[in-house]
């Protein structure tokens, strides 16, 4: 393994990623963009649920807040798509911390319940007429995708808006993933896991439960919010119906499929929720939901650690 240094692998991967969008038709690039967006959202949820052990069935709410923040800023304040991302992150961090306070007293089912209620209330809240002048109410807001800043052709394919967005989403996703990875490996990450596994002991050992839990909620929400903002740009449209409880459930499905407590598993989870409904569509028209449910349950029985745990089992070779 040492023959091939990590640097070289990264180089190859990056080169491959550069070439990829030009090899694929525009539509596929669009789908992959969505997948990367979901990966960021799933990662956010995983930080909270997989690592901190706090179940959220309402992360769609943060996704929606991020998306609408971006849309409103672009539509009413003339922000560029890129500038909306930090704003979405900050706003959602705040929202996450707010949600984190009541979450402090809730555990397990109760938190799941509270967040489920949030997910169900979100579409109605978005339609509220008092804020409709900003949110576009039921009609939503139509956005335009940012143009690529320069003309470029590679391997016979032009740099379209979708291809440009591929690089943008990648440029946002990679640092976020690396940041999360570092966070988890560090002191805070250990504190988070300690709280999940042995909350009372952790408290007794001096970990400030309240602070860590709330922070985790905030960071998790911020990640998902950034994803929401990016998603709004990629789809170029936001409307209340885009953010139903199904979205929250899908994100949770993504976390479970990718593997609870796995950073890179988020990519598999995202690929699942992006592409499986399309495949299920071919099988039967009312299938997507049933397929989701069936796979979800099967995975929990067979591989609770998700796809990543399966990988580890295959590559590590030993029984554990």
């Amino acid at each position, binding site marked *: 393994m040492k023959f091939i240094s990590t640097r070289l692998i990264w180089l190859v991967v990056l080169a491959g990623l550069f070439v990829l969008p030009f090899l694929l038709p525009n539509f596929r690039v669009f789908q992959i963009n969505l997948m990367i967006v979901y990966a960021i959202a799933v990662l956010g949820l995983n930080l909270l649920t997989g690592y901190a052990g706090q179940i959220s069935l309402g992360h769609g709410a943060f996704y929606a807040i991020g998306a609408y923040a971006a849309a409103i800023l672009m539509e009413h304040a003339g922000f560029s798509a890129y500038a909306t991302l930090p704003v979405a992150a900050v706003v959602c961090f705040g929202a996450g911390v707010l949600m984190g306070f009541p979450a402090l007293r809730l555990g397990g089912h109760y938190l799941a319940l509270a967040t489920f209620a949030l997910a169900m209330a979100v579409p*109605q809240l978005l339609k509220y007429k008092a804020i409709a002048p900003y949110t576009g109410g039921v009609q939503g807001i139509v956005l335009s995708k940012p143009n690529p800043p320069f003309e470029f052709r590679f391997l016979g394919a032009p740099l379209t808006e979708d291809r440009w967005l591929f690089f943008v989403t990648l440029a946002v996703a990679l640092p976020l993933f690396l940041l999360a990875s570092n966070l988890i490996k560090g002191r805070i990450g250990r504190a988070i896991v300690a709280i999940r596994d042995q909350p009372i002991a952790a408290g007794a050992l001096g970990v400030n439960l309240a602070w860590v839990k709330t922070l985790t909620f905030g960071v998790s929400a911020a990640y998902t919010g950034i994803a929401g903002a990016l998603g709004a740009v990629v789809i170029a*449209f936001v409307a209340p119906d*885009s953010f139903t409880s199904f979205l929250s459930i899908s994100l949770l499905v993504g976390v479970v499929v990718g593997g609870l407590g796995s950073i890179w598993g988020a990519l598999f989870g995202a690929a699942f929720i992006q592409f499986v409904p399309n495949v299920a569509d071919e099988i039967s028209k009312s299938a997507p939901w049933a397929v989701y449910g069936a796979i979800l349950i099967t995975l929990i029985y067979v591989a609770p650690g998700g796809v990543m745990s399966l990988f580890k089992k295959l590559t590590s070779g030993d029984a554990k």
Partner: protein
Amino acid sequence: MKSSLKSIALAIGLALSVGASSWATGTYDSGASDSEIKVGNMVPYSGPASAYGLIGTAIGAYFKSVNDQGGINGRKINFISLDDMYSPPKAVEQARKLVEQEEVLFLMATLGTPSNSAIHEYMNKKKVPQLFVNTGATKWGNPTGYPWTMGLQPNYQAEGKIYAAHILKNHPNGKIAVLFQNDDYGKDYLKGLEDGLGDKKGMIIARASYETSDPTMDNQMVSLKSSGADIFFNVTTPKFAAQAIKKAAELGWKPVHYLNSVSASVGSVMIPAGAENGIGVISSNYFKDPADPTWAKDKGFLAYKAWFDKYMPGADIKEGFYTSGYIHAAATVQVIRQAGNELTRANIMKQAANLQNVENDMLLPGVKFNTSPTDFYPIENKQLMKWNGKSWELFGEIFGPK
């Protein structure tokens, strides 16, 4: 000399014949060829609005029946219908899939205002026809702003205006209460009523909205009744319309009751609500309700029934959604037929804007498809009808252009 002349003549002759035959087989945009026409569609087959998936099934069945009879101008329809789960992001993805991957010639009967709003800009930018959009929202009939989009059914605001006119004529001193779904469609109807009333808008003394997630209408109905209104405008989708009609009867409230045509279904609304509870309710329609005994012996209905029995085995013929699909599909077939051998997207749009008095088995007598380059509303005629406990009795004249 002679042989070269011969060969030249032969060459010219060959060129002419080849040229002539390729000219005869037509001009095509992606999705069309000598043998087939790819038609794209998306409806919610799953998710909260999955009841509307039935429309997609009916459209597919209609196209199949057309194919079995030889197709259109010798070409078969390849109908590709995808599930958009009533979710705008999914709708965008599916539309792009249909246009960019499946390379359909055009989209038709895409359902629901959110989904259509999400793809509105895209379709017009890509110059792909977004034909016969399956919602009554008024904004689809805008040839100058969005030349590639066209609705089909009478738009909601127009219907609201019809009721307003009726109210002004028959109940000029009434007080109106409105129950409406808190979204695009509900607000569109309300606007139509308000616009139609003009400066007598003040007749509306109470408004109550509801969400599709609300369990019952009780709350709203009690409020509306206690407002003292004697006219009720009921803008609800089928399930909630039935609840509202039932509740009004339970409360002993008997206003002049106008029901939006979206929920005029006999099978899904009037009967479940209690047939006697709805006596006197006024609505309007543009097509024949297959559950209405009035049409049992009607020639058009019998033709519909024959198609239904063969191509929709096991399905409930009383379900009006199937009729909606049938009509949308028929309009599409008419457009394709008119396009002849020039199956380009521009020509499809041109023919769609050139429907002249086209009839259909299931349209009410006197209602026809009519479009022009400045009129992107194919159906504008409606007739008022009153429920008598057993069926809808049409009355009055046919509203709209003659």
